[in-house]
């Protein structure tokens, strides 16, 4: 299957509609029946999916409307985890950090239902399914049971592998593993790589890996060892500086973060185009996808939307330039 050159996509999260946030709090307070809450999530999911499509995103998702947080959503569905209460992440922001208290087992599908709903409602051929990776879940959990973090991460990899196989059976073609914690401990990176490779083993879909706000010079030494076909990284947040490590990305694709998700200023299409021209000095256009730096959920919804619109417009400027040399489409590559 062919995609327009410089396919556009998202990283995952998107601002939840305000009315949905209200549903979340009512549901938490026990003042909204489960069915009503689930219906609200599904409606929000379609709205955001449409918003992605309307902005012109080639490979959309539903903005994770059904996920309250990026690890809790998964740990709550895996047996062997328990919750003692919230832990501070910064300021007055907290998350429910799970503790592994017995052997972790696959109990129920993690994202299968979400995927089914998005697939049934999208007008696009391909959607991207984001899912938090084994190392990050391990790193962001307490470990009371396993003798080492490695064993915890590898059991999580096994559980994710089972989910990925189920997703493949249901027709998923593009899964993005999110590993924001992957570079937390430089000496554990090889273990994180091994966990990811175990998670993707034997699954024939396209895998991307998203790592953000970390030291990419450290990361680049592992590009060749990681069995994914794309790395989705952030660039706008660093003003597109310091990109030399990309010389080590010799065969896989790059998901290029072209707009900053921590700054409400909306980049102009020309700025996006300029950034893409700059990254093309390192990576040829046939190996480039374009996306925001990271999930958009912390932005105001209108700003998030405008960022996607301008991202697509910027891509279109560069596409017109590439068309002059006959470069108009790229194959959707499951592996490289």
């Amino acid at each position, binding site marked *: 299957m062919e995609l327009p050159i410089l396919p556009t996509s998202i990283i995952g999260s998107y601002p939840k509609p305000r009315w949905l946030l209200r549903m979340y709090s009512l549901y938490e307070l026990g003042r909204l029946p489960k069915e009503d809450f689930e219906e609200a999530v599904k409606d929000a999911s379609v709205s955001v999916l449409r918003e992605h499509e309307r902005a012109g995103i080639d490979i959309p998702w539903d903005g994770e409307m059904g996920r309250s947080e990026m690890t809790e959503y998964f740990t709550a569905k895996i047996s062997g985890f328990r*919750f*003692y*209460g*919230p*832990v*501070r*992440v*910064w*300021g*007055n922001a*907290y998350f429910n*950090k799970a*503790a592994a208290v017995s052997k972790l087992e696959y109990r129920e599908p993690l994202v299968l239902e979400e995927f089914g709903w998005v697939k049934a409602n999208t007008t696009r051929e391909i959607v991207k399914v984001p899912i938090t990776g084994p190392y990050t879940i391990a*790193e*962001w959990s*307490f*470990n*009371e049971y396993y003798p080492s973090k490695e064993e915890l991460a590898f059991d999580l990899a096994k559980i994710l592998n089972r989910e990925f196989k189920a997703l493949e059976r249901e027709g998923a073609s593009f899964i993005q593993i999110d590993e924001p*914690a992957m*570079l*937390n*401990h*430089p000496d554990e990176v090889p273990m994180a790589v091994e966990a990811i490779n175990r998670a993707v083993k034997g699954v024939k879909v396209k895998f991307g890996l998203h790592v953000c*706000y*970390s*030291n990419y*010079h*450290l990361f680049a030494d592992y590009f060749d060892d990681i069995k994914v076909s794309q790395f989705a990284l952030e660039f706008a947040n660093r003003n597109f500086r310091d990109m030399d490590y990309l010389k080590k990305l010799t065969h896989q694709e790059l998901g290029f973060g072209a707009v900053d998700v*921590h700054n409400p200023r909306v980049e102009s299409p020309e700025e996006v185009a300029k950034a893409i021209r700059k990254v093309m000095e390192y990576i040829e256009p046939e190996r480039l996808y374009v996306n925001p730096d990271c999930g958009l959920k912390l932005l105001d919804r209108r700003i998030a939307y405008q960022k996607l619109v301008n991202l697509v417009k910027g891509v279109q400027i560069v596409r017109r330039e590439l068309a002059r040399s006959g470069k108009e489409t790229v194959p959707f590559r499951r592996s490289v």
Partner: protein
Amino acid sequence: MIVPALIGGLPRPVSLSKKLEQYYLGRLGEEKLEEAYRAHTKRAFENLRKAGIRVITDGLYRWDDIFNPFIRFVDGVEVNGLFKFYENNFFYRSPVVRGELSLRDNPIPEWLSVALDLKEEVYPGATLKAVLPGPVTLAYHSINEAYKNLDELVEAYAEVLRELLKDLPLELVELQEPALAAELSRATKEKTDEVTPDLAKAVIERLARVKRIWVVTYFGTPRVLPEGVILNVDLVEGSVPQEYRGELGIGVVNARETKMERRDRLVDRIKPLLRKHGKLYVTPNTLLDFLPESVAWRKLKLLGKLGGE
């Protein structure tokens, strides 16, 4: 003698964080928020008494991380984006040093007076200490755009701290100095400049002439050993340097894991140090902020029991 002690703060209770949320949304007035702080601090003191913790802090309920709000009261500093605090899924607002540092009018002495009154009311037997970020750790976690090098920045922060120390209503002050032990992680940025160890030592010893200082280190073994202070060492991720002879606090319960330690094993661990030092403070190994509140209290109770050993 074993003295159970708290270092840093306590996890902010959910009920208090809800109040703060209301306050940020403009739905709760300043006065009501202040009431909530006092009520929660008082409850914390009661619980610390029940747990048998002898040297306590006010729980740092008004603080977001070890730097904030302190750095908001320093001229020359702008408070910037979020950075990872060592290798934790915990982020602090970083100080950007834009000009010469000086201490501004600030409410910290007043907050501590309030806490001291509450302590006298519910737990008069305890020693209350203040908690502030140390100059070396402040320097390492700053984005330095004004001073020639980190050494000069350390000196500048120390001067600001010295001013503040003089105003505090407490005699014992804890300086959070993980940077004396922990390596700045390569996870977020490459290290560019270093603080000279001798300078770090001298600067802290100078502060120890203003107040009695408790230097808290964690995430490694301290490489700088100031004299005339109480030095807290993280025994989970570091060890007490052989050559250290001064007063000692040891971080024996792991504040980054929910798993409960066994009391008999802790006692085995403590005994040889007790023989060498005679008096020991036993503490969590690092900030209890990394734990859910219920677990943090369970760990404090365990520490309290060591006090009877």
